[in-house]
């Protein structure tokens, strides 16, 4: 039959068809690309929707309280008066405390693991530390209630009050649940993140830097201080920021140990409250529109604080990395 005869023209058409198939292949590429683009665009879009929802939800509270919401300290659902200052201060203070405790310890552990530890323990210890990051925060909270609080109440807190009691920070009655307890539990929770990232950053410092310092007659510690830490500094700041981000938003464990009292106290032994804890505690019980709206306003505030802190951190890293150009690659 004529149609089965392969003429040169037919073959040519065949080739043409093959190349059409190839084009279809590249159409597959287009589809793939479109899917990826949508996925990538979904993240900022989601963020925008979230922000819009938060603003819409808090409209009532914003129109009622305005910016006074941030500085006002009274939170009274019955009287329909809402001010988030204690929550804001509690969030910032507990995170700051956590960093004060976690940063030196984490850097110490990371430096030890990369520079000083016997080779055989480096990898296993690093692995165990990463495991710590996988423990659910409610478990940390329970551990805080049953182990940490009784321990602190009988040992560290009385000791601190005895030694540093002349400072307002360490005065007043010791209940157990407190701002300091929250800071400590947060520190424990963010340390795995800070350690893991700083360890990666320190591992990325070229061996030639270490050798250059040691070749000048530096001790191990001097080599760390003069060559390794400066080289890695922007990456290390990044590690700390990651920890701070975790601390600001942490909810469950903090709720369980901070005491949930809407109050700003000079004493770290006094109970406090955070934005995340307040939202978690009250959202399911809130019935009045204004109460719900106030909680949405708190969420908006938390959102803004987190964004501001991260933007500030980026700026810091950028300024530190400029001129040095080192270590930031690990971010």
């Amino acid at each position: 039959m004529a149609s089965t005869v392969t003429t040169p023209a037919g073959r040519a058409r065949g080739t043409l068809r093959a190349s059409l198939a190839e084009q279809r292949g590249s159409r597959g590429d287009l589809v793939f690309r479109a899917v990826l683009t949508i996925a990538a665009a979904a993240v900022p879009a989601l963020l925008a929707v979230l922000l819009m929802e938060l603003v819409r939800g808090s409209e009532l509270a914003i129109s009622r309280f305005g910016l006074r919401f941030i500085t006002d300290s009274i939170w009274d659902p019955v009287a329909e008066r809402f001010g988030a200052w204690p929550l804001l201060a509690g969030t910032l203070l507990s995170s700051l405390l956590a960093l004060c405790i976690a940063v030196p310890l984490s850097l110490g552990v990371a430096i030890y693991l990369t520079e000083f530890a016997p080779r055989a323990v480096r990898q296993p210890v690093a692995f165990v530390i990463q495991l710590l990051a996988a423990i659910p925060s409610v478990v940390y909270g329970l551990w805080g209630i049953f182990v940490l609080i009784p321990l602190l109440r009988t040992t560290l807190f009385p000791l601190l009050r005895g030694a540093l009691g002349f400072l307002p920070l360490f005065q007043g009655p010791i209940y157990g649940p407190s701002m300091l307890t929250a800071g400590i539990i947060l520190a424990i929770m963010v340390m795995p993140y800070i350690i893991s990232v700083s360890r990666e950053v320190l591992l990325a410092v070229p061996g030639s830097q270490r050798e250059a310092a040691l070749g000048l007659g530096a001790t191990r510690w001097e080599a760390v201080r003069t060559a390794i830490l400066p080289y890695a500094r922007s990456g290390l700041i990044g590690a700390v920021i990651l920890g701070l981000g975790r601390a600001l938003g942490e909810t469950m464990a903090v709720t369980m140990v901070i005491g949930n009292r809407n109050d700003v106290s000079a004493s770290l032994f006094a109970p406090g409250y955070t934005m995340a804890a307040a939202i978690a505690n009250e959202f399911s019980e809130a019935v009045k529109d204004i109460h719900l709206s106030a909680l949405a306003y708190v969420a908006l505030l938390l959102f803004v604080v987190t964004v501001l802190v991260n933007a500030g951190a980026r700026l810091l890293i950028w300024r530190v990395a400029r001129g040095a150009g080192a270590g930031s690659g690990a971010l």
Partner: protein
Amino acid sequence: MTPLTTSALPSPVPAASLTTTSEPPRLRTDKLTAMYGKSTAVSGVTLGFPANQVHALIGPSGCGKSTFLRCLNRTHELSDGGWITGRVLLDEEDVYDARVSAMVLRRRIGMVFQRPTPFPTMSVYDNVAAGLRAGVRLRRGETDEIVERALRQAALWDEVKDRLRGSAMALSGGQQQRLCIARTIAPAPEVVLLDEPTSALDPQGTQRIEEVVVELKGDFTIVIVTHNMQQAARTSDTTTFFYLGTMVETGATRQIFTAPRNEQTEAYITGRFG
């Protein structure tokens, strides 16, 4: 001369170890063998480096030149599994003696590496001053003097004197390497080790470094590893040929390059292998 050990007793000079020259070499090795775990990188090298000369180490890649050099200031022991047998003597004092501090030793035997290694976060000035001891309180003016002298000796002063506070990373590769030389000589070591210092540089950069090396021998004893035969011929007073971890031949550079006694040396120098 500050002794390496805390006890100031001078080690007795074993008469038999004296070479034919009247003075013992500033630095010498005695049956030095260097290992990485169980594998041998350098075996049984006995070699002396008289003061105020440039000594070149040549040989094909992987023959143990770097490892040998790193044994001299005890940086070999920083490598994974690095250990040695035999002795390294600086002014006839065993640098591997248990009482010797590797830190003190490395201040007396400085080292320049293959690739320039300036500290990127420090200024030019701070890089040069980095090796000056924090413990030894220097007056501001003194540090300035030392930094300037080191930079002049490294032939870098004129190029950087107006940007001492600028970042060291803004310098060219050749300038960075001369900066590293300045950093190494600022604390006034007695010996300077250079491990292929020009292999990452362009011809001009290489030439400047070679000029600096020749200049420096007035103040230092220099051991330079190079895979560039012309460089060895141009800069050095003595040349030692390494092959497969052993020392094959050593002698005056002129003799090695014009009348090598060993066939392998001749083959390498005439470019028949390596």
